[in-house]
């Protein structure tokens, strides 16, 4: 017995492949949508993973440091460091701003990292080029998503920073690439303003008679100096010693009245549950809609293909072809179409959509497997409609009159 489905496909191969490719693009977009959704969630998790922290200590009653702004004194870490179970504690600042390089402006999250060595909490865990920061000022490690290269000089507020290292997938929960600079420089960038604002502040302070007393020489300078120092950071990142309970240490810190502490799972919930929840929901809705549309289009295509053959099907029935064979013809074509469509879709999603989409697209094998299964199921279900039409055909129609 020959394969009727195979022969039909071979005969109108161009049309079949063209249809498959069109279907494939649709499937590709659907797969990409799933990838964008996963990428969104991954952006949220990457930040937590890469910081290497087990606990985040932030300002009391804030969701910081990522979801909400949080300010704590920069010497709080010393008390935390002494708690049992704490292996390392380090200050960190996070501030999203525009970073300038030549004529170009890039939106990035500037992360301040404590001076020290690789392995300190907050430091980039691995690099793709260059080296980690060694000098206490004016060096930066940037993510490749910024477009900067080794040796570029970046302008952040009033200072120029040399890019000495590059990272990959170091992004904020919003997808902005991260630039790591020394903590003191970051504190200055975050809390101190530009020259104009500083000048204005000095003038205002000088105009205030409480600070500008002639009997007390040096008072004005002291006040201005205090305004120019910054004593705040956004969070303290804590790494625990093995064998200690994370929650116990968190409770110990919480008992102090001025601080809130989050464990990794709580931070995940904040980032993914609160920060990206809206975007994630939107993308998920798009995904569902696209899937439904794809299913409808597949059904339509297969139905059209079958209707185009209705005369041949009548003849086949007349000359004695079994129902089973005719069902096989339709279903095999549907499955073949689905398979071609899926392959084209996966290739499109991986080689075209993922690289050009501005956000991170994470295509997981599990999603592909589920997608493949869904495509096959949809093809088979939609072929049922066509099969019913084929079964209803009266072979007598082959004989006119």
């Amino acid at each position: 017995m020959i394969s009727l489905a195979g022969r039909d496909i071979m005969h109108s191969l161009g049309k079949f492949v063209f249809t498959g490719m069109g279907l494939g693009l649709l499937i590709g977009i659907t797969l990409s949508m799933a990838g964008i959704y996963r990428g969104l969630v991954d952006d949220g998790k990457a930040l937590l993973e890469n910081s290497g922290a087990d606990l985040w200590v932030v300002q009391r009653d804030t969701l910081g440091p990522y979801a909400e702004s949080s300010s704590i004194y920069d010497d709080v870490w010393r008390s935390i460091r002494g708690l049992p179970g704490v292996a390392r504690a380090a200050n960190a600042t996070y501030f999203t701003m525009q970073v300038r390089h030549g004529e170009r402006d890039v939106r990035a999250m500037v992360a301040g990292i404590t001076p020290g060595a690789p392995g300190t909490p907050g430091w980039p865990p691995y690099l793709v080029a260059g080296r980690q920061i060694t000098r206490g000022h004016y060096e930066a490690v940037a993510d490749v998503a910024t477009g900067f290269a080794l040796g570029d000089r970046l302008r952040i507020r009033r200072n120029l920073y040399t890019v000495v290292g590059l990272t990959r997938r170091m992004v904020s929960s919003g997808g902005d690439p991260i630039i790591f600079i020394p903590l003191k420089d970051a504190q200055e960038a975050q809390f101190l303003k530009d020259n104009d604002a500083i000048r204005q502040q000095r003038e205002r302070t000088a105009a205030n008679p409480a600070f500008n007393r002639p009997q007390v020489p040096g008072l004005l300078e002291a006040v201005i100096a205090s305004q120019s120092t910054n004593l705040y950071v956004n969070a303290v990142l804590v790494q625990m010693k093995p064998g200690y309970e994370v929650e116990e240490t968190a409770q110990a810190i919480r008992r102090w009245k001025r601080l809130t502490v989050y464990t990794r799972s709580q931070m995940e919930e904040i980032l993914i549950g609160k920060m990206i929840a809206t975007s994630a929901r939107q993308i998920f809705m798009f995904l569902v809609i696209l899937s439904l549309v794809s299913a409808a289009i597949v059904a339509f295509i297969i139905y059209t293909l079958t209707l185009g053959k209705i005369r041949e099907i009548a003849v086949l029935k007349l000359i004695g072809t079994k129902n089973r064979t005719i069902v096989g013809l339709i279903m095999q074509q549907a499955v073949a179409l689905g398979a071609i469509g899926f392959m084209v879709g996966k290739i499109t999603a991986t080689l075209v959509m993922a690289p050009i989409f501005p956000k991170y697209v994470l295509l997981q094998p599990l999603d592909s497997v589920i997608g493949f299964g869904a495509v096959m199921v949809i093809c088979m279900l939609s072929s049922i409609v066509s099969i019913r039409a084929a079964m209803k055909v009266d072979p007598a129609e082959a004989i006119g009159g």
Partner: protein
Amino acid sequence: MDGKGIRIEGLKKRYGSGDTAVDALKGVDMEVAPGEVVGLVGPSGSGKSTLLKCLGAIIEPTAGRMTLGDEIIYDGGWKVKDLRALRRDKIGFIFQAPYLIPFLDVTDNVALLPMLAGRPNPEARRMAIELFKALEVEHRARAMPSQLSGGEQQRVAITRGLVNRPPVILADEPTAPLDSERALAVIRILNDMAQQFETAIIVVTHDEKIMPTFKRIYHIRDGVTYEEAGEGRAIA
């Protein structure tokens, strides 16, 4: 008869029920012996197509008896379980139009029938090509139907009807699209086949060109048949 030939007795077919009922066949008697090629003539609306469909086991008659060779296939109800197998093995069809499957080549179009009957593919194709030789289309064996002329397609369609060597062949206006030379050639082939394989062939037609060739002609009018002797002219 010895497994061949076809006989119909008192065949009736009613469409619909109650007030809207239409009696297309009102008691048809017909008999075709093995090796015979008879004509079936009638105006449209006479029940010609209905009779053909009953003969082809495509629709179920309302009453009567149909016998194929030694087997009673219908007697008030189908006596055969698998009608499709019956059609596949015992009845050959030749339609007005070739109705070739466009995505199979000419050989496979014809070989499809023996394949459906269970023959291995190479043997089925051999059977097809044998018949092509008889109808002088073997040089087109690998072509696709769209590459053949109308006449070539019709000849291929005829081989499809013949390839399983069915005992009965129903031909519906087989010569309508052909010119007189080809039309007579087709009738000649049918006669040859009928004689060679003892096939009973019923040709539904109103083609004046071939009418003289029948030895017997059935006329059908208002659901009833009348037999008439034909000229039986031999074909050159």
